[in-house]
């Protein structure tokens, strides 16, 4: 695959334009087709994204780390019993399984202010990589709040937090969840914050979302700053969602050079 010497591959002389975009431009061609290197590059990215969706979440490390921090956690299941069902029936990923519900109802609940839910969502990889480091930053900030046990949910969608928050009568519901993986970001984590979440009643309009948390996206610190701003404002306004605007300082992740349109200017 030494394409520079390969007479079958025609390279593109405009490769310098790659500085302006993460898009797969100037790939060159073998005949009119993708050269081997570009083709395998794509397959690599797709494999990472597919594995992020399909490799089952393993909460044991997270559970252990949390208990070493002196924190109680519970592992919960939804009605989406397997991955295939989970992908085809988003509604089942929003409801706790009967066994989990029975289990929750047996445990006594002390009054709480906030609940943190960690769910695999569409990228177990995002949660494996980013949940614990983010929690290490977040938990000290929530010292003044009475926390429910951390809930680790397998095959969970965002709205699973509503039922859990309601169970613990928690005012603040914070859901960390794996986002739909892109080719360039298979391990992106999102945070959904809902004030006074209610199962089956809360909608997307009631939530605030902090998206795109990964190594090349929003940093843990930036995400934490946004979340703490939202919590503070929500407590003041007693609401969350579309009427709670994120006015924390701009944390744009666009570091690309500010060139103008070179085709005309």
């Amino acid at each position, binding site marked *: 695959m030494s394409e520079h010497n390969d007479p079958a591959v*025609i*390279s*593109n*002389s*405009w490769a*310098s*334009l*790659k500085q*302006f*975009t*993460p*898009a*797969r*431009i*100037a*790939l*060159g*061609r073998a005949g*009119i*087709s*993708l050269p081997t290197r*570009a083709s395998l590059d*794509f*397959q690599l*990215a*797709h494999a990472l*994204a*597919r594995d*992020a*969706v399909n490799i089952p979440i393993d909460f044991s490390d997270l559970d252990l780390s949390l208990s070493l921090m002196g924190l109680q956690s519970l592992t919960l299941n939804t009605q989406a019993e397997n991955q295939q069902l989970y*992908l*085809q*029936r*988003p*509604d089942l990923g929003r409801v706790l399984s009967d066994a989990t519900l029975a289990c929750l109802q047996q445990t006594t609940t002390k009054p709480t202010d906030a609940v943190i839910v960690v769910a695999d969502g*569409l990228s177990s990889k995002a949660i494996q990589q980013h949940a614990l480091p983010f929690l290490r930053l977040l938990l000290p900030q929530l010292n003044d709040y009475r926390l429910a046990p951390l809930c680790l949910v397998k095959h969970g969608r965002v709205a699973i937090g509503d039922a859990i928050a309601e169970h613990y009568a928690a005012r603040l519901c914070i859901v960390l969840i794996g986002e*739909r*993986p*892109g*080719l*360039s*970001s*298979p391990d992106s984590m999102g945070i959904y914050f809902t004030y006074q979440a209610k199962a089956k009643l809360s909608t997307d309009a009631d939530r605030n979302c902090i998206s795109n948390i990964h190594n090349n996206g929003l940093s843990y610190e930036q995400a934490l700053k946004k979340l703490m701003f939202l919590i503070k404002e929500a407590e003041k306004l007693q609401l969350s969602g579309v009427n709670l605007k994120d006015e924390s300082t701009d944390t*744009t992740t*666009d570091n*690309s*050079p*500010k*060139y*103008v*349109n*070179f*085709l*005309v200017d």
Partner: protein
Amino acid sequence: MYKVHLAQLSYDFKTLRNLMAKATPSRSGDYLAGVGAANNLERVAAQWALADVPLKQFLNEALVPYEQDEVTRLIIDEHDSIAFAPISHLTIGDFRDWLLSDLATTEVLTAIAQGLTPEMVAAVSKIMRIQDLILVAKKCRVTTQFRNTIGLENRLSTRLQPNHPTDNPAGVAASLLDGLLYGCGDAVIGINPASDNIEATLRLLHMLNEVIERYQIPTQSCVLAHVTTTLKAIEQGAPVDLVFQSIAGTQKANDSFGINLNLLNEARLAALELGRGTLGNNCMYFETGQGSALSANAHEGLDQQTCEARAYAVARKFKPLLVNTVVGFIGPEYLYDGKQIIRAGLEDHFCGKLLGLPMGCDVCYTNHAEADQDDMDVLLTQLAVAGNTFIMGIPGSDDVMLNYQSTSFHDALYVRQVLGLRPAPEFEHWLQQQGIFNADNQLLQKSEVPALFKASLQKLGR
């Protein structure tokens, strides 16, 4: 009314809506909606029953009540009974035979298009195999014009989609130039803006207009913002070629998109007034996709494919330049895997073409769908054989803004080469003039940048 007795079992499907849903080839979205067939036998029983339904019945039994849905009213009120007359005696089963027969020539299919309703074409598609969908669609011919001519025989156009995660002008320009140098962009140069606000839309509209004017490219531009944003841009004097909007097949779903027929009409008239088309005035660009009504909780008990076909009635009213079914974008809860995506793409293309639309397809998938590049190659090739009007062109198939995979510039070249398809004639002429293509429509062998674009690149100090 819709009864059938098969394999020692009796089925009674009660309503046409139920019958249509049960007859639909298996797909996840119909199970999510709770309308799909319980098993294979029930599905095939519904197909038998559906084959006996007269086409006329679709004019008598609205699948969504006339009183509560403006899409139904549009379908019924604008039905052309004269165009319908030659086939009005047929059942759905007869109609399939007729479509496949030599009686249904290109001219005849063109003549009956306005006599067909979306539900009729959706119904017949449910009892057709993939080769039937291809064979009939191939006979349909729909041409449209703005600054070039789209949809001629043995032509395949491409939408150049130079999206960038932050709409950075240099980033957009980089993908745009890459696409042009690979011969892409005759259907439209169309950008999905990263944020749907008026400032971003204006900036991109002016940018695309300047590029098209500077390089005298015989194509049209589009910024895929909400129709209300585009209307504001027109009011502010922006150079709008095509008005974009996502549309769906029920009034409720269109409500959730923040649109209705009046608004679309207003936008079309505003764009027509600008008079920017040189060859024709097809100035609308619509996108659709199976599952969109269900995802807005507005499917009215319909199966997703019938909902989709009804969206084409909305499209047809506004004489679009292009209609694009974004088939695999919505995710596995609607179309689970490559098999479901492939069939849906070919159904949509067939239904759109039969209704008289310039139908293209975003051959695409997301990373949580059970699909990969091989599936896309199958759909792309089959669509091209079926005479699909246009596909997307995205650098290396990877849309870095919308985070999904579609067809690449290379894919378009592949399918043109193996099937002998050409770009729109005006654009083809431009490509040859600029030395991007040779006289045989092959990319020139040298890796040099054509003279036209040299100065721009030299400025960057390569």
